[in-house]
């Protein structure tokens, strides 16, 4: 039975680890083909977001069940500076750093469910889910 996995993010190198663990769990849960890549890419974006903006945080990967539905849940959590303007951060192409401004809105597109909570000075938590069917 697949279980919860946690990956500490302390540098951009850890993005690769988070991606690989996410890929493994997705395959273990029965995701196939493009879905595995979509999940992997979404994890890549949110974990890089932590490494770049918050410096430290963690990615939690776990199986998700809701009634008969099965899927995968990714939580990206940090205690970083938080996001001042959330609607702006969720705008495609808007970047506060040197990136393409694809990260958060991109991850939202790739997953079935996406939720973000952020508090200035207290950090950001992204919770996103992909369902098997």
């Amino acid at each position, binding site marked *: 039975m697949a279980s919860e996995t946690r990956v500490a993010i302390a540098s*951009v*190198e850890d*993005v*690769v680890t988070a*991606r*690989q663990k996410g*890929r493994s769990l997705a395959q273990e849960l029965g995701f196939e*083909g*493009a879905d*595995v*890549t*979509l999940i*992997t*890419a979404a994890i*890549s*974006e949110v974990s*890089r977001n932590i490494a770049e903006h918050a410096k430290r945080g963690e990615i939690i990967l776990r199986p998700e069940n809701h009634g008969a539905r099965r899927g995968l849940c990714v939580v990206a959590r940090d205690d970083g500076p938080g996001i001042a303007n959330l609607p702006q951060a969720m705008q*495609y192409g808007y970047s506060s750093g040197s*990136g*393409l401004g*694809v*990260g958060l809105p*991109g991850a939202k*597109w*790739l997953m079935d469910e996406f939720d973000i909570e952020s508090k200035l000075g207290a950090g950001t938590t992204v919770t996103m889910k992909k369902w098997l069917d």
Partner: protein
Amino acid sequence: MRVPILKQRDYVIASVQSVLSDPDLLQLRDDLTERIGRYRSRGVIIDVTVLDVIDSFATRTLRTIAHMLRLRGAETVIVGIQPEVAFTMVQLSLTLEGIGTALDLEEGLAYLDERTKRNLRRGK
């Protein structure tokens, strides 16, 4: 892991062997920029067949590499983007505008021959 770069005719081929971290991608950029100067290469092939994901950072870095190399007088072609990887890039609206892409190494070489018009001189 550092990407090995081989010289082949007037071209250099960077053959990605494993997943790449962000620093690996930046290293590839620096290595290629230096190498095309040393070899006086007119074309560069970056083979990404083994990459299981090309996210926003990888896309941005590949674009930067191609534009830098063009400023140094070389054409770049990215080869081997897998179907699922392409699908994900489209979902993310990530594009490699202005950069050559080809199915595989063979097509990549043909692309560069066409772009650099060296096939004529070689008598092929």
